[in-house]
């Protein structure tokens, strides 16, 4: 006979505010099989776990039901707790009365009623629990990093440092990410290229790291320790191994009018191109959208000039398949589309730019070689207006604004103001802001320097309209000063918009492939907002950099190193404990029909001839199904297919599920 203990968690007020936890514990007392029940403020705390352990011993419990947060949060915690006192961890069930009850319902009476039903269902299932023992899984001691920005590079370097092989998949022709596009970095104003390009070289030269640039992750299958990943190596039309990066082809290519994405299309590049001088890998790529040879069959100049014969117009996309033990998502960010904010005249005047474009305008490797010139007439701007929070901190609006704060804009705008004043002290600079947010080491000092030392005009308020005047070439900025409560008119030469950051547009596709959760803004969600900030809820997938939320470079780097430490933790193990919730046939019922093998996506099922005892002391050889425990992933496809009902799934058996159904319906 089962002896079940039910433990109801208050989770502070997270559960207790909408569920009468005492009533749930009380109701448990009349559930068949339950011999003990209790409620406690924090079940997952050490004292909460102790309560569970002591009760198991004191009341001789055979099963434990915890009514708490989602099993995705703490199932492991509690299983470990009961295991430590010798109970089989699979004799424990969780009733999810937080995420799927107290947090989604407002009415306490209804919430309590539902929580009681969920508790009863968990007890019904627990009654049928059987002890399970997991097998061990091997670990592929290699890691995959998706995204080669500063986050991905740092993670890869740290993992390689520990001695493991790493592949970086980067969609662009070069690694480096946004940091390589920045001019200088706050708050120290060191040149971004000077710190990021040596990192890129380190990555390129590290013999444990392989860079798969100009590539996409196409498919991710498997699980922690054993991911099978398909990677598409997009056709570059240039042999990476042969190309020396001399750049002769890029000089001779006649197709020179291709918008240059590296300079955010502020200038143009050739069709065969190396994104920038310090690109890693430093190899050329042909842009198939513009190539005359690929599109019209003419030209072919690059192949003629290339001294090493690296050009190959016949190249095709190639799919490679790799195995990894752990994956780091470091897909970074993009600048949000602000074309719908017509009031700022972005798109109407080339002199209205985003801050990232301003970085390129200032950069020595940028379109104007580091001379700050405005794009329309290449004259030095004398009056510049910066507008903060464009598209950030917006209520959800038709313009596609973001509710969150993009976090880095206040600081980089102060940086832009200081750098501009440093080079062109007679420039007049106005910054319109809602709040200036400078939490960070040396951040507020930096901002105050902009105001006090450089005399940048910070105006708390907003810009209502920017009107480009063709005749004068000026941008008329109409703003509002909230502190003086007056309208302002500024005739500016340039307007710089601190546009919101948003996750990479590939992030959702990646998250889906990785079965990793995301938030409503498409940032990856961490397994726990405070305690597991670099892990995804999906085991073996870790997060680094802007793909998890807005952050600056130091924060990105720390997160990347933390994610690397977690990856190393996985790869350092020789074996991981497997999942015991797998399929098994009842051999007496199985008639060897072979249907189950047909649906198993992992090929886990084979058939063997076995001897069975028959009446009158005779025996008979019969074919029966056999499940490979290391290969079965426990999806259960076979269990439903089996016509004789022989196949069942441990941990989610037919009887257990039906017991839950009964408990919820009756």
């Amino acid at each position: 006979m089962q002896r079940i203990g039910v433990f109801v968690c208050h989770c502070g007020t997270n559960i207790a505010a909408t569920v009468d936890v005492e009533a749930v514990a009380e109701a448990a007392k009349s559930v068949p099989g339950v011999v003990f029940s209790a409620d406690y403020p924090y079940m997952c705390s050490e004292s909460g776990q102790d309560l569970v352990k002591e009760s198991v011993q004191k009341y001789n419990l055979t099963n434990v039901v915890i009514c708490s947060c989602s099993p995705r949060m703490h199932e492991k915690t509690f299983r470990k707790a009961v295991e430590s006192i010798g109970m089989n961890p699979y004799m424990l069930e969780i009733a999810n009365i937080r995420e799927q009850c107290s947090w989604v319902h407002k009415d306490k009476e209804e919430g309590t009623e539902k929580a009681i039903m969920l508790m009863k269902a968990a007890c019904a299932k627990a009654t049928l629990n059987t002890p399970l023992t997991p097998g061990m899984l091997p670990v592929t001691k290699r890691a995959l990093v998706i995204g080669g920005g500063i986050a991905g590079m740092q993670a890869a370097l740290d993992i390689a440092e520990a001695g493991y092989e790493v592949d970086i998949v980067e969609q662009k022709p070069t690694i480096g990410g946004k940091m390589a596009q920045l001019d200088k970095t706050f708050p120290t104003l060191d040149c971004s290229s000077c710190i990021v390009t040596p990192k890129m070289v380190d990555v390129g030269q590290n013999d444990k790291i392989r860079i798969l640039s100009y590539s996409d992750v196409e498919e991710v299958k498997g699980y922690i320790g054993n991911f099978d990943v398909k990677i598409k190596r997009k056709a570059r039309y240039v042999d990476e191994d042969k190309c020396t990066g001399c750049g002769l082809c890029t000089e001779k290519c006649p197709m020179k009018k291709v918008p240059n994405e590296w300079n955010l299309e502020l200038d143009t590049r050739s069709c065969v191109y190396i994104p920038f001088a310090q690109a890693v890998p430093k190899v050329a790529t042909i842009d198939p959208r513009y190539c005359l040879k690929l599109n019209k069959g003419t030209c072919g100049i690059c192949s003629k000039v290339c001294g090493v014969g690296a050009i190959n117009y016949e190249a095709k996309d190639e799919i490679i398949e790799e195995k990894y033990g752990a994956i780091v998502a470091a897909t970074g960010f993009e600048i949000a589309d602000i074309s719908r904010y017509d009031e700022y005249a972005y798109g109407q005047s080339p002199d209205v730019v985003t801050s990232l474009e301003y970085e390129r305008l200032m950069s020595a490797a940028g379109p104007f070689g580091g001379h700050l010139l405005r794009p329309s007439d290449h004259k030095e701007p004398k009056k510049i207006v910066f507008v903060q929070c464009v598209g950030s901190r917006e209520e959800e609006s038709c313009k596609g604004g973001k509710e969150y704060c993009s976090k880095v804009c206040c600081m980089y705008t102060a940086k832009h103001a200081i750098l501009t004043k440093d080079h062109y002290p007679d420039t007049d600079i106005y910054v319109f802001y809602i709040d200036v947010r400078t939490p960070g080491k040396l951040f507020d000092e930096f901002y105050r320097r902009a105001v006090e030392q450089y005399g940048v005009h910070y105006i708390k308020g907003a810009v209502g309209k920017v009107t480009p005047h063709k005749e004068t070439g000026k941008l008329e900025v109409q703003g509002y000063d909230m502190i003086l409560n007056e309208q302002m008119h500024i005739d500016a030469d340039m307007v710089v918009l601190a546009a919101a950051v948003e996750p990479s547009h590939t992030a959702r596709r990646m998250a889906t492939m990785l079965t990793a959760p995301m938030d409503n803004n498409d940032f990856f969600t961490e397994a726990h907002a405070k305690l597991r900030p670099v892990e995804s809820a999906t085991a073996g997938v870790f997060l680094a950099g802007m793909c998890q939320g807005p952050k600056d470079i130091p924060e990105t780097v720390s997160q990347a190193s933390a994610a690397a430490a977690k990856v190393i933790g996985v790869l350092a193990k020789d074996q991981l404990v497997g999942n015991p919730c797998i399929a098994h046939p009842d051999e007496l019922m199985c008639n060897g029909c072979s249907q189950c093998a047909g649906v198993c996506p992992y090929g886990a099922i084979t058939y063997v001839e076995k001897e069975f005892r028959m009446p009158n002391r005779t025996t008979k050889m019969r074919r029966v199904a056999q499940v490979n425990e290391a290969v079965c992933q426990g999806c259960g496809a076979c269990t439903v297919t089996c016509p004789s009902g022989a196949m069942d799934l441990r941990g989610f058996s037919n009887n257990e599920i039906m017991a839950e159904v009964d408990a919820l319906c009756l």
Partner: protein
Amino acid sequence: MSVKENTEFQPTIVAFCCNWCSYSGADLAGTNRLSYPTNVKIIRVPCSCRINPMFVLRAFQRGADGVILCGCHPGDCHYMEGNYHTRRRMTLLFSMLNYLGIESARTRVEWVSAAEGQRFVDVMDDFTAKITELGPNRRLEDLRCKKN
């Protein structure tokens, strides 16, 4: 939102959710403090393909008014192709229910990913409203196992 205030009839709704996508989607609805009717009670299964049509019939027999199956979007199944099995099996079940003269609208398959807390809520709101409209399930309910 609860249907309780406006109507007498409180449908019993069982939602089978796959562990990887839909169950996490339901969790996300909670984490984002969204809200759906309390009528919906979730049963966790590893994959939507673990849901035997027999479980659905069992639920109806025991008095459920609606049964919904949620899995990962086609192509995104954690186990590669489990949800395709679900789709085929359930299509068969739907036609069987129709044949028996039972509204097949009482059960449905929906794809909800781990990132779609809002979609989970929308699906559950819609399903609960439809089932409330259909009224209590009497045809399949086994009166021998009637509530009290």
